[in-house]
Each structure stands twice: as C-alpha cells, then as structure tokens.
C-alpha cells in the first residue's frame, strides 16, 4: 500500500505530562484511519501537531513522501491538510460564507464563494445557506460549515476531531456517507473518536493511543468493541448495573414550563412537562442548544418560572430561588465544571461549603465552621475516590474527571430528594464516568429521584429508566428506556433536520 502521511516518533511533553510519547503511524491515500483513545490519551495534541498548532519536541512527519513540518495552520492547509475541530472554530456573529472564507488561504470574493459553498454542500449532501448567521444554526449545521470549509480547499488529508459528539444518529449516518464519498475520491481521513461502534463501521485501520503512546494498530472491523475498549483503557471495564426500578410516588412534577431563552442564541422552553418518582432516573437526551441550559436553570431556580410550574413533593417551588430549593432537597449539578459547578481558584473545602452549607450545617450565625467544612470535603474525596493532594487543593488543579467526581459527589452526599445533573460525564475518562454513573444509580436505589440531562445517548440508556427527548425547547413524552433503539431515539431527537432529502438524490445515497 502506498502511504500518504507518516508520523515517526512524535514526542511532545508539557510540564508534568507527556502528551505524545514516540508516536508513529501512517495513513494511505483514501484511507479512513481512526485515532482511538480516552480523553487525555494525547489524540488532540497529536492532531494539533499535524495541523501545525503544536510543535513536537522530537520526531518527524512526511506527506506525499516529503518531510512535513508545518509552522502554522496555514502552512498545513497549503500542504493539503484540513481539520474539523471538536469545539467549532466558528464566529457566531458572522455569516456562513464569511466563516468559510476565514478558514481558507485565498478565498474568492464573497459572491463567488457563496456560490461555491452551495455547489459543494449539495454535492456532498450537506445543504447550507451561505448567507445565514452561524449563531442561528444548529450544532449539526455548524459542523457542516466546518466540513464545507475544509472541502473547498480540496484537502488530501482531512482530520476530524470527535465529529459525532454533537450529532443525532441520523446526522451521523449522513456524515458517514459523506466521509465514504470523500474516501472513494481519494481523500484520506484521520478520524478521532472514543466511540467504538462508529470506528468499527467506518474505519479501515485504527491506531490506539493510551497515555500518549501507541499501544496497538489494528483493523477495527475484525476486533470486537470489548477488545478495542480494553486496548484503549488498559483493563476490562465493568459496566454499571441498572436494577429493575420500582418507582415510588412522584417527587418532582413539572407542568407546562415555558421560559424565554437564556441568551441571544438560546432556546425558548415550550410547555415542558414531566414527572420523576422516588427511586427513578429520568434521562433527557438532545443535541446541545435545544434548551438544556434553560431547563437546568429553571430546575435549579437560577431562572424563576411561573407559579405552579414546578412542584417538589406537592409544594409549589416555581418562584423560589436556588437556596430555598436546596433547603427543600432539590440539588443540581450544572454542565460546566469550572465556573458554574465549582469556583476554579477556590479550594475544594470552600467549593464544598458553597453548595453544602445549608444541608450539611457548615455555618453558624453566619460564620463558617471550617472544621466541619473540611470534614465534609474529605468525606467527598474519600467516598468518591477523588484523586487530589487534599481538600486544600484548588478546584482548577484537578483533572476533569476528578473534579466531576467531586462536584457530583458533593451533591449526592447531601442526600438530595431530587438530583438534576447536566452532562455528568462530559470530558471524563471511562473509569471515572463508570463510577459517576454507578453513584447515580445507587442514589436512585436509595429512593431519590434523579434527572440526567445528557447528549451522550449511550449514557442515558445505561442509567435511565425512562427517556425523553428535548428538541427545539420542547420535551417529548417520556418513554421506557428498555427496548429503545438508536433509530427511534434519533427520530425523537428531531431526526436529521433537512439533511435526508439532500442525500436521496446524491449518487452515493
């Protein structure tokens, strides 16, 4: 097989951590090659090196057989390497065409560029209106902007960093068709993911990274998901077990909740209704930006809602604030760990005190009882296996997974009647994610009601007894999670918006 791109002994160290350790692999023309690894395994650093955003300490790369060492992204683009970022590098206030133009080396005038965008997006089944503002687009549409931006430059190697994390299952299918079409045309694709099923269906070869080093190269279609997972994590993972639920009486009742959007590009909540019983976990799925933030703010009390819209054990809490709700037993764990769930520069003890002072009686006459607060923080650290030097460490100093265990543990130890969490395992390594999910299941078993809002559908199916989809600010009727298929869930999430029709006429459909 001829090779298009090779990496040879790439090494990059940051203070305290070796992000890439002697990484070597190769990609052939038209090959879809997977880079598989956990969060923190060094995938992102590796692709940033290829795209010229990071300079390796050691090692070399070749492209088309010639040495390749891009000084910056524009050098990489000139050489034929394009990248779709995990966190989109898009500008909300600018139009689609302007966004595309910014990512190109020598963009044509806007009018001609707009026509090219329409052409290319049709050809690959990714319809886009070049004059729309990016801030008004859905996550799937934003990704199309990124992809079209890359395609217009006719890349030889296309890097995709976790492209499916924001897509509905139907959108994923369409994306895969586009990628296969590109591969048939000779474009190599470096596909980064930690979703094993995707890689097994899409990729020809996979390079598996663990703690910065290559641990294996294999053909994913010939390996089982369990084998891949073991290579990736280093040990067999135990999946949390979900007991048969016997929901008790209703604890949290939401009826006809309607709220204006939280920000200029937010979503209006429309007539959201659901109930959660004691011992039950309700999973709310949906692509980000469909009202999750608003729903969380309404449940936590950060945004007051109408009288009677939210009831906790029969009592109307629609207009009460977060403090009263916490006192009554409704606790929340927001999505953003640093800045929302925890104050980055404050110690773990202080962060524990911030939400726990009422229910754990950490204050007296307005004075903080530091001894008790410290004990509480130490209890969280011990019971949830938070790896940290101690309760005096700043929240910022913890890794994502450890901090997440801490903020979730902090709420669980306060014995909530209802716990609402948003994206509880986002950006967390597999072992910590399993521990967090198990903790949520245990909490429900002890009789609390739990609401899990997540974009990770596998996660929801793993923990939730019932599933509801949030789409455009509306919540579907909750259905039992057992026996739900991905396809059914995809349809509940609003399907693929307008993408389906476009592909029907394409030759590769």
């Amino acid at each position: 097989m001829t090779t298009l791109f090779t990496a040879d002994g790439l090494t990059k160290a940051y203070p305290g951590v070796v992000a890439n350790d002697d990484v070597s692999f190769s990609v052939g023309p038209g090959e879809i090659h997977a880079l598989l690894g956990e969060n923190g395994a060094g995938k992102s650093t590796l692709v940033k090196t290829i795209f010229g955003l990071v300079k390796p300490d050691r090692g070399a790369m070749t492209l088309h057989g010639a040495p390749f060492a891009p000084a910056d992204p524009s050098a990489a683009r000139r050489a034929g390497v394009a990248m779709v970022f995990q966190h989109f590098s898009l500008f909300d206030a600018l139009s689609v065409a302007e966004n595309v133009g910014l990512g190109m080396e020598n963009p044509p005038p806007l009018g001609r560029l707009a026509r090219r965008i329409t052409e290319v997006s049709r050809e690959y089944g990714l319809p886009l209106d070049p004059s729309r503002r990016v801030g008004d687009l859905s996550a799937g549409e934003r990704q199309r902007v990124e992809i079209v931006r890359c395609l217009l430059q006719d890349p030889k190697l296309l890097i995709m960093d976790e492209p499916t994390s924001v897509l509905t299952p139907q959108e994923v299918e369409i994306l895969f068709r586009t990628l296969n079409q590109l591969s048939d045309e000779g474009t190599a694709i470096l596909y980064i993911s930690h979703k094993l099923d995707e890689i097994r269906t899409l990729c020809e070869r996979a390079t598996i990274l663990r703690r910065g080093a290559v641990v294996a190269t294999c053909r994913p279609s010939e390996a089982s998901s369990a084998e891949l997972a073991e290579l990736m994590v280093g040990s067999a993972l135990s999946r949390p077990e979900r007991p048969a639920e016997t929901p008790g009486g209703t604890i949290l009742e939401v009826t006809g909740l309607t709220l204006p959007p939280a920000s200029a590009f937010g979503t209006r909540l429309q007539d959201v209704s659901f109930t959660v019983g004691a011992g039950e976990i309700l999973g709310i799925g949906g692509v980000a930006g469909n009202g999750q933030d608003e729903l969380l703010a309404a449940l936590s009390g950060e945004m007051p809602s109408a009288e009677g819209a939210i009831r906790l054990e029969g009592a109307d809490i629609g207009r009460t604030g977060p403090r009263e709700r916490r006192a009554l037993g409704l606790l929340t764990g927001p999505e953003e760990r640093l800045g929302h769930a925890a104050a980055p520069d404050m110690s773990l003890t202080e962060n524990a005190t911030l939400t726990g002072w009422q229910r754990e009686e950490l204050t007296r006459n307005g004075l903080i009882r530091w001894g008790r607060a410290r004990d509480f923080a130490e209890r969280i650290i011990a019971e949830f296996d938070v790896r940290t030097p101690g309760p005096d460490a700043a929240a910022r100093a913890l890794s994502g997974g450890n901090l997440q265990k801490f903020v979730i543990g902090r709420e669980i130890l306060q014995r909530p009647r209802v716990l609402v969490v948003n994206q509880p395992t986002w950006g967390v390594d597999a072992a910590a994610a399993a521990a967090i999910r198990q903790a949520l299941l245990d909490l429900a078993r002890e009789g609390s009601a739990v609401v899990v809002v997540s974009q990770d559908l596998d996660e929801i199916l793993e923990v939730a007894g019932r599933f509801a989809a949030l789409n455009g600010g509306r919540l579907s009727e909750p259905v039992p999670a057992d026996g739900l298929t991905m396809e059914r869930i995809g349809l509940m999430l609003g399907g693929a918006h307008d993408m389906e029709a476009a592909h029907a006429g394409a030759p590769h459909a």
Partner: protein
Amino acid sequence: MDLSSINWLLLIAALMVGATPILLAAIGELVVERSGVLNLGVEGMMITGAICGFAVAVKTGSPALGFLGGALGGAVLSLVFGLLTQVFLSNQVATGLALTLFGLGLSALMGQSYVGIRPPATPKLDLGPLSDIPVLGPILFRHDPMIYISILIVALVWAVLFRTRAGLILRATGESAEAAHALGYRVIRIRLLAIACGGALAGLGGAYLSLVRVPQWTEGMTAGAGWIALALVVFASWRPWRVLIGAYLFGGLTVLQLNLQAAGMKMPVEYLSMSPYIITILVLVLISSGRGRISTSAPAALGRTFHAST
C-alpha cells in the same frame, strides 16, 4: 430667552467642529473594540494627542505636522496599553483607567511651557464657488480640511471592516480569539495593530481640540470628551456610520448648550451638559437589559484576555 439671537446656520457649522474630536476618538475606539479589546484610556490618549499635536505645531509652525504628531503621540501611548494587556495579560479595564490617569498627568507635565500660546492657524479649505451657495455653503463648505478628513476616515473604516478580508479577520478576532487562533491568525498582532490605530485616531481627535476647536493648550482640556467617545461606540452599536450620526448629535448638544446660555435661558446649563451622559446611561441600560438586537451587536470577545494555550 431670545431664540432669534441664535444664528442657526453658524450653529450647525459649529456643531460639526464641536463633534469632530469625539468622532475621531470614537471611530478609533470602534476599531479597537471590534478586535475584541476594550480600551478605556481614550481620554488619556486624546489629551496626550492634544499636547503632542500642539507642541509639534508650535515648534514647526505647521498644523499638518501638528496633527501627525498628535496621532503619533496617541498611538505611542496606546501601545503602552497594548503591551500591558496583550503581552503581559493585564486586566483591560484597570489598565485602561490607569492609561487615562497617566495620560492626564503626562500631558500636564509636557504642556507646562505651552500654556497661553496660540498655535499656528489651520487654514480653511478653499472650495471656491461651493462656499458661496446659500445655506449649504456656510454649513458644509467653509470648514478646515480635518472635518472632511474625519468623515473620510469613517468611510474608510466602514469599507475596511465590512468590505475587505483584513476587516473580516479583525471582526472575527473580536468575535472569538480562540477560533481565530485555531484558524492560524495572529490574534495578538491583529489586536496590537487595532489598538495603535485607535490610539492614533484618539490622538488626532485631541490634536483637533487643541489646534482648531479651542485653539490653545490648557490642562485637562478634553474634559470628558474621551468618555463620551467611549459611550458613543456602544450607542452606535459598533457601526461606523452610526458613530458619525451619534457624534454630531452629541456635538450638537454641546454647541446648543453654549448658544442657549448666550441666549439667556433660565434653566441651568448643567442640565444640558449632563444630557449626553444621561442619554448614554439610558442606552447602556437598554443594552444590558438584553432586549432587542442591540445587545447582540457587541463583539462577543470584547474585553476578554486572550492567551494562546499551546
């Protein structure tokens, strides 16, 4: 009060002169803010420009060189701000406020020997028969060149921001420095250029004040014009032509207040002097209440420190 004593033609002509310093400073600050940087030191850069321009004009006898000197003085001072906030990552608000105080002090020191001197006069532009057109002539065609240059600058800023790739990159940097960096743009260099440009225009506005509008040097002569310019950028929701309209409105209020005073109005003039600021506060409240489109027109990354993580 005798309103007939006011010559409305002269008033409108004076309005353009009164508005030009604010206009220049505001259009400069607009460029800076569009790149995502909030420089609150406009007042300091203006007054530094005023004394630099004044000194150069007096020494060389040439108003044109004076304006150039003013722009240069403002730009140099703004680069102090740029160095502190972009390279040493200091807080933009605090640094901007410090820049204003520093500029006021520095200009007072530099200007000690220039108090009470008259600068060389800036000639009016001779537009021949155009100036003799009734009504329009005195209003539009009997001014010094800087008035026309300032309007040209507004047009130029508009064209660059919205019609060129360089302007697109500048606006993109103001929307999301991280995304711009990921695409390979040099965020810090772009922002430093924008800051220098803003400083130069603020300095030019200051020089206009000391060379044409007053024209002499007194300590603290900008008297809050820099703050009005800052408010004006928000008021105009970061759009160049609206800055022009806003500057003439605010400039108009200042001139009108002087005329009303002369006409013997009973109401304390302080009310009128307050009015630009009151309007500004009202507009700011409307904006931060989050209603309507105006709240979304601010550059998304405005005032946020950018540090490349790689």
